[in-house]
């Protein structure tokens, strides 16, 4: 079987969700935006909270039905999780979107703004991993 079938189908499902959300609710499936909307108590908010509940339940369903084991816990230290989380949260709020909002939905709308954002976070993501894995000594894989 084609080695990339599962990532490809996973991607198609993510795309289908974005399509359904736009078709039914007229909303962009940007997770950063949905989360911020949920915690900042926007009006008409039930769908956001339930989306988040579904997002957390979805993987359980997949691993159960497909019989695929959960991925291993990250080998990285806790402070790296905290640092990564702070930067991700700060960045997506400042830049108005994340991988799903700018990447999947923005590119789908042919938005130049989202293309610029996507190229930027891809570039700094790649640069960061390069520095941590290949330039810093004593890297833990």
């Amino acid at each position, binding site marked *: 079987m084609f080695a990339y079938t599962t990532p490809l189908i996973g991607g198609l499902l993510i795309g289908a969700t974005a399509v359904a959300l736009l*078709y039914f609710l007229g909303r962009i499936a940007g997770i950063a935006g949905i989360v911020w909307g949920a915690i900042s108590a926007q009006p008409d908010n039930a769908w956001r909270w339930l989306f988040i509940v579904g997002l957390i339940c979805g993987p359980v369903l997949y691993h159960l039905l497909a019989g695929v084991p959960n991925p291993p816990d990250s080998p990285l230290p806790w402070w790296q999780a905290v640092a990564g989380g702070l930067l991700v949260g700060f960045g*997506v709020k400042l830049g108005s979107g994340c991988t799903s909002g700018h990447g999947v939905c923005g590119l789908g709308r042919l938005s130049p703004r989202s293309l610029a954002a996507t190229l930027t976070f891809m570039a700094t993501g790649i640069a960061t991993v390069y520095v941590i894995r290949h330039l810093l000594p004593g890297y833990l894989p």
Partner: protein
Amino acid sequence: MKAIIGLLCGIVFGVGLAMSGMTDTAVVLGFLDVSGQWNPDLAFVMGGAVLVTLIAFRFILRMKRPLLNPRFSLPASSVIDGRLLSGAAIFGIGWGVYGYCPGPALAALTYMDNKTAMFVVAMLIGMALANKAAPG
């Protein structure tokens, strides 16, 4: 009805993330590690997702309104400014530091690793800090 759509979309999105490997930080960091042992999985995830939105959004956005709401809620801004680019740059650094972007981090909460919970709490604090530093 809107709430049910939200729930169903969340579930399918979560299934898609788990299936695509994005809830595994090793897969994500392997994709970003272009000069190491590059893992191309994410290119297929992004490619598959964008393929679907690229085709279907054209038809949906020709509708007068979405099915269950009076109007489309689309981003109003079209300016590429310092705020957008610095935000995206900072986000990318955080993505490379741990291997999660917001969706996979939330979806991975289900695996009950404490570090994922720490990541999510820190992410919410980061959002609130950005909102305080540069509201809007």
